[in-house]
């Protein structure tokens, strides 16, 4: 019989081997002093690690009651309607992107603003508390493929990979809805006023809303009317701040 590897001995000790293989390995180990010694070393080592680790971490944990109560309050604030949001059933269209030739001629200083007839903006019925209770997650990029196609269609764009992202005009983190009326194709390479800059504005507005510095409806209206004007107003600048040019919302984690 072949030599039993440390990995398999470890699996045996942890009861992780499939049954037939487990029986085979056990039979071998019974008569193999070398294997027995290594198995003992692995088991002992793991036990020692578990003990050392327990001592290092357990003392730091505070009582669970506070955190549990906080979680319950936050769950209460999650609106039941959320379950009907389309991104349940979505294929993950992480930054659906497309191309056309014409974008090459794009004046790179020229911002692409959404067409206000096609994309006036749409919101979910959520209060400030509800918006702020839900973590600023990355559902940003979860647009169903069919809906993305519809958006490109309405803008008369032929989709080709990696040139556009289908962006929310009013971000979900600000109560924006996943609705064609709230989606538009935003070129990644739209010069200085690109998707990263808009993401930075969204984060900033959300902070202001959750701190109570501005109303949720004001934030929604301003970003929907003219996001570049809103950026200039809230960051007190004419041009995008250099740090924001590469600002990226994190990638989806699921």
């Amino acid at each position: 019989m072949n030599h039993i590897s440390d990995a398999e001995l470890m699996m045996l000790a942890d009861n992780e081997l499939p049954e037939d293989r487990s029986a085979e390995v056990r039979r071998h180990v019974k008569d193999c002093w070398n294997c027995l010694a290594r198995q003992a070393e692995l088991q002992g080592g793991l036990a020692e690690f578990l003990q050392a680790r327990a001592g290092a971490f357990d003392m730091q944990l505070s009582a669970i009651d506070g955190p549990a109560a906080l979680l319950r309050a936050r769950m209460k604030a999650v609106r039941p309607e959320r379950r009907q949001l389309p991104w349940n059933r979505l294929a993950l269209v992480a930054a659906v992107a497309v191309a056309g030739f014409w974008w090459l001629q794009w004046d790179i200083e020229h911002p692409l603003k959404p067409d206000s007839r096609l994309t006036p903006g749409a919101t979910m019925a959520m209060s400030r508390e509800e918006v702020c209770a839900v973590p600023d997650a990355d559902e940003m990029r979860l647009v169903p493929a069919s809906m993305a196609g519809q958006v490109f269609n309405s803008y008369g764009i032929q989709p080709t990979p990696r040139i556009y992202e289908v962006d929310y005009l009013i971000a979900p983190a600000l109560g924006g809805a996943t609705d064609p009326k709230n989606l538009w194709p935003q070129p990644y390479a739209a010069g200085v006023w690109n998707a990263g800059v808009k993401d930075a504005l969204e984060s900033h507005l959300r902070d202001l809303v959750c701190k109570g510095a501005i109303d949720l409806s004001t934030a929604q209206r301003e970003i929907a009317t003219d996001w570049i004007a809103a950026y200039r107003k809230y960051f007190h600048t004419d041009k995008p701040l250099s740090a924001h040019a590469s600002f990226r919302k994190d990638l989806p984690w699921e």
Partner: protein
Amino acid sequence: MTRNLEIEAERQTLADEVTKLFQAYRGPLLRYLMSLGVPVAVGEEIVQEVFLSLFQHLQEGKSRANLRGWIFRVAHNLALKERQRGVRRPQVDLDEQYPCPAPDPENSAAESQRHRRLMAVVRALPQQDQQCLHLRAEGLRYREIAEVLGISLGAVALALSRSVLKATSAEAVR
């Protein structure tokens, strides 16, 4: 009206279920996050986020298969994101993060010193080996660890055996 009451009752049941899971896994998750170098306070916030996502996940009627693996995976990914964001935050000193074990009358001084050394050896291991060890320590099965880290089952077994031997042999030498 009855429908609304039903929905509310359903939400309540789900919230109870999530709270139970929170009670069972908050400690293990926090320890795992600390082992990744996340400060306790940030870890608490991540754990909240994990269970809020779980609540939504279940509300949307998504898969209930292996919820423990799901919970750890989401926490792991949030911790990595937090670390990327960490440039804005002062780095956590891992030696502070793993404090000396509290004096325990049943533990001899020599033993706690040995434990400290062992943890120091573990901290010097490759990142993924450490993660495997800590997830194993929280009682996850190899299949769950493989899923959390996005590696194969064999890679988990290899990482565990390799790092256990390394940690304990290095310890014995001193």
